[in-house]
């Protein structure tokens, strides 16, 4: 896996980045991928921010896992983020494990993998690290920036920190501050990892092992929260997994158990346990209004970016209410904002799935923004 990681696109960020925790990182790698072609006038660039367990491989085949990119429903030729028309960019977040600086990389001071010596990072740190990539690609202003879940949180931060960098923005199924419920679920995931003896205070990286059981449980928690009660009932119900009756054991009798086990242990193959700790922490610390004395309205003051907020009716992780609070703040700050609640049973996962109303809305907005952006550039 590591030999392949050498081959993916990376930039070295040479400007020192002072993190919110006070520490500074410099000369660090930022891995990314692009799809489609950048136009001569550089007016067709779309930046995608990925979610907790995502990476930069949003479309086609992920060269590391050999699986489909995580957003192939929305990104590709003729799709909502049409790669025949647009230049789509996605970078791996710092703290991640797909080529950008993360806890499994070598600490230059100790010549050993960081483990828990890796600095605690924030959503703002992630976003500021990614801005360097736009400079590298020579993009002054993005046609659009988008992202779901933690990707949406990064996007809100991005628009607030760099108000002139995006002509339009589509935060999807996200929140401007992590709720108690979301912090609790993240804590459950972290505790599962830390309770695995293999984890060994994060030092497993030195032994080239992975706290598989803890990490798998952490992923199972996530998967439950990404579905809706109704969606889960319809998909699994009380159906048994390839058996006629109960086994009277603790094996995976039910399909839902089998599904969770499969998702949990598949995740272990592609993700680093310490990265889950660091990234979930960044999400929990996220509170955009805390950065501004006047609250959320202040965070969006003077925004020229045109927003479209999208929520999903059955999402209980990042609820319609939380998304609407962002709309209200944007409205109060006088920003240009649209909002749509997509009716679906597919829960938080909806933004990754084939939900036609969602994908149609996404496409309509991006296409109409492209016409406006071209006109504005002409003037």
């Amino acid at each position, binding site marked *: 896996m590591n030999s392949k990681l050498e081959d993916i696109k990376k930039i070295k960020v040479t400007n020192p980045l002072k993190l919110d925790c006070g520490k500074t990182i410099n000369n660090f790698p930022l891995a990314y991928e692009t799809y489609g072609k950048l136009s001569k006038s550089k007016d067709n660039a779309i930046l995608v921010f990925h979610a907790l367990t995502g990476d930069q491989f949003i479309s086609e085949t992920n060269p590391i896992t050999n699986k489909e990119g995580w957003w192939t429903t929305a990104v590709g030729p003729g799709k909502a983020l049409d790669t025949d028309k647009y230049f789509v960019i996605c970078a791996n977040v710092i703290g991640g494990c797909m080529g950008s600086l993360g806890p499994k990389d070598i600490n230059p001071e100790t010549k050993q993998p960081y483990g828990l010596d890796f600095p605690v990072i924030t959503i703002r740190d992630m976003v500021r690290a990614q801005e360097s990539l736009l400079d590298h690609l020579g993009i002054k202003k993005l046609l659009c920036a988008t992202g779901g879940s933690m990707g949406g949180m990064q996007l809100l931060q991005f628009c607030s920190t760099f108000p002139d960098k995006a002509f339009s923005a589509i935060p999807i199924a996200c929140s401007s501050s992590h709720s108690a419920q979301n912090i609790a679920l993240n804590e459950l995931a972290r505790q599962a990892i830390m309770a695995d003896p293999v984890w060994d205070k994060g030092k497993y990286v030195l032994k080239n092992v992975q706290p598989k059981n803890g990490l798998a449980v952490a992923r199972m928690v996530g998967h439950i929260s990404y579905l809706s009660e109704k969606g889960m009932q319809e998909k699994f119900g009380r159906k048994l997994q390839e058996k006629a009756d109960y086994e009277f054991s603790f094996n995976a009798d039910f399909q839902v158990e089998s599904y969770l086990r499969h998702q949990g242990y598949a995740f272990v193959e592609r993700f680093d346990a310490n990265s889950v700790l660091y990234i979930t922490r960044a999400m929990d610390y996220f509170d955009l209004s805390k950065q501004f004395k006047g609250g959320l309205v202040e965070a969006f003051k003077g925004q020229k970016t045109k927003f479209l907020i999208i929520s999903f009716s059955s999402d209980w992780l990042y609820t319609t209410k939380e998304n609407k609070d962002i709309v209200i703040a944007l409205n109060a700050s006088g920003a240009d904002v649209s*909002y749509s609640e997509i009716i679906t049973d597919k829960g938080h996962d909806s933004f990754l799935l084939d939900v036609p109303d969602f994908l149609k809305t996404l496409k309509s907005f991006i296409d*109409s923004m492209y016409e406006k952006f071209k006109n504005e550039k002409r003037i």
Partner: protein
Amino acid sequence: MKNLKMKKEFKVIADLLPNNTRVLDVGCGDGSLMDLLHKKKNIEVRGLELDQSNVQQCIHKGLPVIQGNAETELHQFPNQSFDYVILSQTLQAFYNPEKVLRELLRIGKSVIISIPNFGYWKVRTKLLFFGEMPVTKTLPNTWYNTPNLHMCTIKDLFNFCDEKNINIKKVIGVNEDQTSLIKKNNLEIKNLFSKLGIFLIG
């Protein structure tokens, strides 16, 4: 609810609005009026709309729209944040029209409201001679499936504004392609011959 043949209504509303203003269209439908105002008068438009397919059509046209219910979600707009707020043929469909009206007056410096006129002579004769709830081009629904909970006449709304100390700036009656100014002295007759009433208040 919005009748395609009543496009005249949009022209009248557009004429009431100065160029380069900021306008909120409450219940903006597929965005036809917003599109007209934006293109013809360079008005900065925003819409509020309940129906998802209408919202999609607005987004497709590049018009900013918020999906939501005017009855319960107008609180999100700050005080006096728009020059004009438009409510086209929807007032009668709210549970609490007075509350909605107060909200519109809070958000907009001025408010434009249009109502299908229940005092129009054809409506009156249907009820009088046939003894049935009127079904007309402007009021196409039957009693059991109409969204209109609080039908009123131009005279009713006129008197309502008077009673509630709401300043009436202008009232226009619309009948097919004809429009006319409505004042206190011609209210009775215009209330009989207008299909639609358009009020500029605030």
